[in-house]
């Protein structure tokens, strides 16, 4: 079927369609403006001095300054927040992906006793409110002496990230035809060698997306990471909320700290742009 077949009828609707295209551009422009304005305002404030923020109202920084960023990057109580967050987030991502890979393979290829119940149970953990788990986690990790360590937060975030990784990876794996597995086994591959050499490269994009979402969900979580830490492993999110509650607010530094937390997501967003819907929908779109 080609377009030319419709040429006589298509001419009229196309002329009418022209203003609609413009209309949609306006809608998108307005929506994106709505999305970008608050972010712009944060960036704007992070580049101002505190006197400029509080004494005058300016739409862009008049005295451009990077002093706020310098403060954060030289003061250990600030930059250690980022280091702590990065440590537990990377630990969590590594643990989640490692245990989720074989499990997702099992769910996508085999039926076994209780598989559906297990798959559902995993989902309930992804959906569980962190507020319910905050206190028990605090007591559990205090009693085993892991309170205020990075591994405690990493393990606690496994609660929702392992199920997330299993569901996303399963969504990608079911797209790989089973004949590939069977051919590899006939060719004499053992399961581990097949999995690492053949199967993992096939779902490389799936692993990337799952890792990205584990990273993101661990990075954005505040309640559990704040409850489980006090000094040594305090995440950047907790550092920021404590500054908010203090009197004599340092708005510029707060804004700069906020901008720095957006950067990891903004850096990789371009590469995962076509998978964002799939990741949030747990691999089901």
């Amino acid at each position, binding site marked *: *079927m080609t377009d030319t077949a*419709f040429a006589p*009828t298509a001419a009229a609707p196309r002329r009418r369609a022209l203003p609609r295209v413009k209309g*949609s*551009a306006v*809608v*998108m422009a307005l*929506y*994106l403006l709505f999305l970008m*304005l*608050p*972010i712009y*305002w*944060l960036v704007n*404030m992070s580049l101002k001095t505190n006197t400029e923020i509080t004494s005058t109202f300016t*739409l862009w920084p008049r005295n451009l300054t990077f002093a706020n960023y310098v403060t954060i990057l030289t003061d250990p109580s600030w930059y250690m927040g980022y280091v702590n967050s990065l440590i537990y987030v990377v630990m969590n991502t590594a*643990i989640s992906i490692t245990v989720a890979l*074989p*499990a997702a393979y*099992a769910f996508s290829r*085999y*039926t*076994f*006793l209780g598989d559906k119940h297990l798959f559902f149970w995993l989902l*309930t953990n992804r*959906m*569980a*409110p*962190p*507020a*319910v*788990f905050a*206190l028990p986690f*605090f007591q*559990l990790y205090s009693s085993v002496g892991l309170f205020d360590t990075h591994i405690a937060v990493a*393990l606690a975030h*496994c609660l929702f990230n*392992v199920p997330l990784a299993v569901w996303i990876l399963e969504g990608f794996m079911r797209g790989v035809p089973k004949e590939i597995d069977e051919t590899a086994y006939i060719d004499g591959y053992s399961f581990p060698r097949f999995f690492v050499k053949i199967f993992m490269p096939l779902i490389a994009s799936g692993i990337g997306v799952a890792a990205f979402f584990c990273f993101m969900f661990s*990075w*954005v*979580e*505040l*309640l559990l990471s704040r409850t489980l830490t006090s000094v040594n492993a305090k995440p950047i*999110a907790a550092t*920021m909320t404590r500054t*908010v509650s203090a009197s004599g607010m340092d*708005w510029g530094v*707060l804004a700069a700290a906020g901008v720095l*937390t*957006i950067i990891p*997501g903004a850096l990789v*967003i*371009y590469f995962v742009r076509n998978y*964002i*819907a*799939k990741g*949030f*929908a747990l691999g*089901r*779109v």
Partner: protein
Amino acid sequence: MEKTVNHKAWFLVLPVLVLVAFSAVIPLMTVVNYSVQDTFGNNVFFWAGLEWFQQVLASPRIHDALMRQILFSAIILAIEVPLGIFVALNMPKRGFWASLCLVLMALPLLIPWNVVGTIWQIFGRVDIGLLGHTLAKLGISYNYTANAFDAWVTVIVMDVWHWTSLVALLAYAGLQSIPDAYYQAAKIDQASRWKVFRYIELPKMQGVLLIAILLRFMDSFMIYTEPFVVTGGGPGNATTFLSIDLVKMAIGQFDLGPAAAFSIMYFLVILLISWVFYTVMTNLDKREGI
């Protein structure tokens, strides 16, 4: 895909099972434990039966928090779902502009939740925020820390800002999967724009929209960080949603019994919705398989 029966697959699932059991079942058992016991301190506990559950069910404080929570979830769903669909319909289909829209729209989804709160806390302030300052200049009195209505508007606009893109991206993914032939057939029938939406696009988006609605409902139902940073649950208790109330009770006041009973009922609600979610997902998979 036809799956093979293989009970040895359990070994592949075992690590996940152990890890999630450690981080989900043990804490949950602690909660169950607390919910049926009382203490006078010194770690001496005695059986309290269903006392805490009765107390929580009768507590006006929790009724109010639940009402606020349901109202909040209903409002944001009523705004975000139609708006998300509308945005998705207006997105460019391919090329550079489509990529640009995808990247910019995904940006709010990837901002840490407390920073989302911080952004809006600053943005809404009358003295230094663009929104608050503009409203004040227009002569509209607006103060989200003192006025309950303003606090609600701020929290809702913030959530719309934060999550509408998710609905839009999911709807967009659904739209992209509609073959061109459908539109061509509609063109032959001279279907109006509305009819194309009603009879082609909406039915084809049904699956992803269900996922979007359930996800948004779940996540709004356990929202904690963003309103906590912006309003701290105030003014008064005006924006104290379920999770904020629960954390106040459990960690702020250390009322273990009621907090645990509350947690269990909270979790049961989540379990119920998860089940609906799971059923929807598996039915979609089956339909795709045909």
